[in-house]
């Protein structure tokens, strides 16, 4: 379908220039408001930027988790243009799997370093596979039968699955927050750069997410099935004519997204040392915001968006108050969708017009 906004009269040149400027730099300007304002405040009050820098560092670690979830949104949206509402809750189940396995394997704060690393690696693999398989099953049951139905239909089943997964979590570990043993002493300072303390949690986020991102980007760009995914995203029918099995490719996309969500679940459990059945809803919305911010359908954009939203969230947590953070993140979401729906590095989509 063509864009909905058909101009009624030929636009004036100057208004066009202004509009183009706002559309190109407006989002970046909005994003810079918070850090710049608080940076100036810090310089006046304390004379250096170490508090802001610490915020940014914490934000990047947090943002790595959002980026992992956002990758799942962006892959699925890229290929079948569906907002997979259940993805946030899938991540929540990933954190629950990790929580349970930590108990089952018997990792405690006193476990020695080498067994701890191997135990966590094992948990990482199991959580990733569990989420990946679950996501593929959801696609098979809930989305594939609706492949040619009106677009709202799969979106509504996605909302339904989101509630089902939330209730699975509720039955599994109950309605309260559950504390995860602080296996990696995530808030322990390792060393300090330029007045910014680096903690174990930051290292964990770095060590898990960076290889995954490299793997993902290379996989999508270079592998055979990655090429099939890109072809299907561009034009499913043409892809089918070229001998690509579109259904398998879509299933595989869900599998990849689920794998990332599982990894995010483990990091979240270790980093926040707290799991909760409702965490997936907020996390899902934040990750979706990240995906949209980067340009939905764009893998690198989702990663960038996740890191940016992580920083925004951390600054808001630290300066304005944790209770307002969701409102601020959703406010950003609305602003992005309204003023720059294609995101920072995305292209124009049919949806956004």
């Amino acid at each position, binding site marked *: *379908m*063509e864009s*909905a*906004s*058909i101009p009624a009269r030929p636009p004036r040149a100057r208004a066009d220039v202004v509009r183009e400027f706002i559309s190109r730099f407006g989002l970046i300007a909005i994003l810079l408001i918070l850090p710049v304002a608080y940076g100036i405040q810090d310089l006046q009050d304390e004379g250096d930027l170490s508090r802001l820098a610490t915020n940014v560092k914490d934000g990047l670690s947090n943002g790595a988790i959002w980026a992992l979830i956002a990758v799942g949104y962006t892959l699925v949206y890229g290929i*079948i*243009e*569906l*907002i997979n509402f259940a993805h946030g809750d899938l991540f929540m189940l990933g954190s629950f799997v990790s929580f349970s396995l930590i108990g089952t394997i018997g990792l405690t704060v006193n476990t020695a370093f080498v067994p701890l690393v191997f135990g966590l690696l094992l948990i990482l693999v199991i959580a990733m596979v569990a989420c990946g398989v679950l996501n593929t099953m959801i696609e098979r*049951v*809930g989305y594939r039968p*609706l*492949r*040619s*139905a*009106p*677009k*709202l*239909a*799969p*979106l*509504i*089943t996605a*909302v*339904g*699955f*989101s*509630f*089902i997964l939330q*209730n699975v979590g*509720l*039955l599994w570990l109950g*309605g309260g927050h559950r504390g995860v043993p602080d296996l990696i002493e995530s808030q322990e300072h390792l060393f300090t750069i330029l007045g910014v303390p680096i903690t174990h949690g930051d290292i964990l986020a770095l060590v898990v997410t960076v290889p995954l991102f490299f793997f993902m980007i290379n996989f999508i760009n270079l592998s055979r099935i990655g090429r099939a995914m890109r072809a299907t995203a561009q*034009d*499913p*029918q*043409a892809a*089918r004519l070229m001998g690509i099995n*579109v259904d398998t490719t879509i299933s595989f996309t869900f599998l990849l997204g689920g794998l990332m969500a599982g990894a995010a679940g483990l990091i979240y459990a270790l980093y926040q040392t707290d799991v909760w059945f409702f965490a997936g*809803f907020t996390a899902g*919305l934040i990750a*979706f915001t990240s995906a*949209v911010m980067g340009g939905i359908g764009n893998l690198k954009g989702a990663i960038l968006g996740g890191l940016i939203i992580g920083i925004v969230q951390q600054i808001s947590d630290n300066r*304005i*108050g944790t*209770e*307002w953070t*969701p*409102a601020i993140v*959703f*406010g950003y*979401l*609305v602003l992005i*969708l*309204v003023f720059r*729906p294609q995101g920072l590095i995305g292209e124009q989509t*049919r*949806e*956004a*017009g």
Partner: protein
Amino acid sequence: MSTLATRAKTFKPPARIGKVRTSTVVTALVIAFAVVLPFFYDSGSDFMNDATVALVYVVMALGLNIVVGFAGLLDLGYVAFFAIGAYTMGWFGSSFFSSRDIHIGVAEQLQSQPGIHVNWLIIVVLAAVFSAVMGAVLGFPTLRLRGDYIAIVTLAFGEIIGRIAVNSDEGIFGIGDFNLTNGRSGITPVDKIDIPLVDRFTTLNLRPWYWTALALALVVLFINFRLRDSRLGRAWVAVREDEVAAISMGIPTVRVKLLAYAIGAAMGGMAGTFLGSFYNTVNADQFEFSFSIFVLAMLILGGLGSIWGVVVGAIALSFINTRLIPDVLNEVPSKIGLDFDLTQLGFGIFGFLLVIMMVLRPQGLIPERRHQAELAEGIGGDETIAETRA
């Protein structure tokens, strides 16, 4: 051409009993049944309570039906208008702002109490207007967007309003210290509905509440029917079916969409004032995302865009929520040796319902004719993804 010919061939005149259409007779019987229903139950019984709530949900569902069913704008933040209506009730019908002293058209007992006390009939109009304005304001940013982006923006607005409700007991966004909503503690007690020339409503006799809710539901139902058959209603359906074609036919889509948001929101706001007064409290925990989905599930169950379907869906889901799950089915898990509380699962069950309905019967229990055709075409046809996506 061929569709016109087949339609002319298959056209059947409406069934009649004597000189009256059968559908009119059925409608009259249903309404009469609803009016006399309270006489068969104890005036303070649980059933009356649940029936009253069900009728209010009918109002909400009919409001959402205008936005989602008629105009095809998937609104996942409908709870915002419930919140706005309920807070309007709380602000203008309680002793919450105790430093003010305003009384308009309320009974003598309330005259001596501090705070703002306004007659419910005025508050309903106020809430409808306020919600309609908010509906248009929140709908405005979505005008350029389509499909699932609208869902996300409305969802975000619903969440922002919910956050404001939870956190605005000490200033908004931490600015100032004005207590706007009293957060999770909520505004309570809220004035009872007060209708001139009728005895004061009490919590012991639920019949007047029921009839008030019924009257509200009937008014909204009537408005829905008239709107559906109006020029505006046809414009909504046109926008839903094909926005580009609608534009080229000269339909002012901006105005048409904003009117859908505004009218739908007004109905949500009206229902909100009633529930605020009926529950005797307005607190932030009532306004969660799951509520929006609960109302959406009513629409899906009954059939998107189908007025009678939505009424049936609302009543059915409301009773499933208030009676079937807590009273009837709650014993089942323990009987088969499982250890959990089924009431916890309420929303999982609604989620399941959404999936099942969408996969097996997307047109709902009582489908709207036009919607059904569209869905049948979509699923049964040999279209590929590419075509539906385009």
